[in-house]
């Protein structure tokens, strides 16, 4: 009996079921992407946000960000002075708070804000929210090349996008690019990613969002990312947001 089992296993491995070469579904690939994107227990980093207009004029903003798990993120602007201190707390179940220092208290943000541009960048609040792709989108594998998979993502709930075409690295499963299409099926935005290995994690060192209609782009550079610092859930509370 033991011998039979061993032979069966050997046949299975020889057929390729034990490694990546077997035909994966879009959903499986997307889940692997989420595992790469959210593999660390937590993250803290500084961000440099460079907004470049069509004419080439640049504005620079800086922020700090901490993230835990798949759905908790606290983002705080540190410059320019007019925005310094403005912070956004993103929690599970679409709960988002904004803290404006001039009001001295937090304010719940309605989820309709998600389709709007985030603080004058080419990213929307939805793009900035810490939420796994597989929670938000259904995936269909539409192409496989030597280097990447191409997935078509369609939103599970109401979204500003009709679909996203995502290219995903074939062996490391991080995103290479994503193209966003509006409800008229026109490509409106494009994102490119630069990933680098930091310790044992693949880290998005730069994300660039191109607004194809406006001709502008926004780069988010992640500086000094630190993973698995042991951030507690208490770091993602109103108490921390307002202090």
């Amino acid at each position, binding site marked *: 009996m033991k011998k039979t089992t061993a032979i069966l296993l050997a046949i299975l491995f020889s057929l390729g079921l034990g490694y990546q070469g077997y035909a994966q579904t879009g959903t499986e690939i997307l889940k692997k992407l989420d595992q790469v994107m959210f593999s660390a227990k937590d993250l803290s980093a500084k961000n440099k946000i460079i907004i470049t207009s069509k004419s080439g004029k640049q504005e620079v903003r800086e922020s700090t960000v901490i993230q835990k798990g798949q759905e908790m993120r606290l983002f705080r602007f540190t410059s*320019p*002075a*007019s925005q310094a201190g403005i912070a956004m707390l993103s929690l599970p179940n679409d709960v988002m708070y904004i803290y404006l220092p001039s009001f001295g*208290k937090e304010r719940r943000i309605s989820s309709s804000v998600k389709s709007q541009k985030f*603080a*004058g960048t080419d990213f929307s609040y939805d793009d900035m929210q810490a939420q796994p792709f597989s929670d938000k989108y259904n995936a269909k594998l539409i192409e496989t090349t030597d280097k990447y998979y191409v997935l078509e993502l369609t939103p599970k709930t109401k979204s500003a996008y009709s679909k996203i075409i995502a290219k995903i690295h074939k062996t490391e499963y991080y995103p290479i690019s994503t193209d966003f299409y509006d409800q008229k099926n026109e490509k409106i935005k494009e994102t490119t990613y630069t990933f680098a290995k930091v310790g044992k994690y693949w880290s998005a060192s730069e994300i660039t969002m191109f607004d194809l209609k406006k001709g502008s782009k926004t780069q988010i550079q992640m500086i000094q990312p630190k993973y698995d610092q042991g951030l507690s859930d208490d770091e993602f509370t109103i*108490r921390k947001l307002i202090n």
Partner: protein
Amino acid sequence: MKKWIFISSLLLLYLLGKAQEESALKIYGTISTDQRVTTSVDSGWIWNETRLDLKLEKKVNRGKFYANLWARNFGVPKYNEMGSLFNNEKIDPFNIQLREAYFQVDDFLFENLDLKIGRQRIAWGTADKMNPTDNLNPLDVEDIFDMGRHRGSDAVNLTYYFKGDFSIQGVWMPFFQPVNLPAGVFANALMPEFEVPEDVTLNSLNIHLNQPAFRFKDQSTLGFRLKGHIKGIDFSASYLYGVNGIPELTQVDVTPGINIYPWYTYIDVEAQLSFIRHHVFGLDFSTNIGGMGFWGEAAITKLDKDLYVKTIVRNIVPTMDPTITDSLVIGKNEPYVKWILGTDYHFPKGGYINLQWMHGFFHERGQGELNDYFFVQYNHPFFDGKLSVVPLSGAFIVNNWKEVKENYSLVYMPEIIYNPIPEVAITLSYIWMKGKGAGMFSAIQDYDMFVIKAKYSF
């Protein structure tokens, strides 16, 4: 007393020692100017303010220091006497206000207990700018178009955060601070008209304020708030026992007289206003349904004692006894409820709308005296937020639903905000007012105005 000062000093040194660590002092703030010119009557320049809003902050590993100072050139110069030219305050009206100055110790005494001591703003409520439950700090209605502005109060503020989404807060404010009323031409907005019979002339009117005695029991304010989040709904319940910052008429002393030539009768009036102690029970919530934000607040106010107005009408013959009557204005067992409901929505193309319905403004008292206020604002950003256009912004106020045409106020305030660079905001707006009856904006409807503001953040 010496013993208490000694213990307090030790406690202060202990707290400072705990808080004094790490990080550099951050200095930031804004420089702004706010200029308003009326277009309706011959008053010309009605608002002139240049403000340095300076903030100092030093974060330490378990807390922070924070101070906010306003240095302002505020008001128009007045130099109609020769002596004024020798007085800098008249030529360049200038003032400094310490808006906030406190230090904070996180995990004070035990974990999850935060302490803030000093002058501070403690904002309660979930509504947008107008919060019936936000009664700890004194209102600052100097600029009646800057709704919801409060001054800081000297306070001891303890907040304990439970694991999860709940917190409980206790606040003690040893000193009472009254409201500061609207400045300049807006002074009439909140002052009720003093009515006298048609055939009588008001010769003089003196209003005295009865300041609460400097004793803890007369000055102190206590507040508690439980805050939480259950199933997508943020809520809080609060209680406050303190003194209302807006004084109430408690005595009117009328002395009639006759002028022989020319012949007419007149009255001299001495009025007394007092600050009334009250209990305020508050509830608020905010949530998100179908992408829209919803919030609401209710504040139930119950006076500590019956509020009477004593009217003394003296006889024209001084030797005869005056007529004295006491009229009950609000009984201590006649609570009244102020509330607000609001909603907002972000449109996919970038517009934002905010609607609020409020019952009872901050200066209104008694269930039958509360008016309805409807506020709306729609703004739309252009050029990635560099330009914001607010075509719809204003309020509609009804004093009497049975005769709306004779008892309403309407305010319309379109606005354009331009940010040439991220640090600079230039605002151009127009304020148009119309009303009938005793509404707040009816009293100042002659002062439609252009407003230009510029602000630089550093």
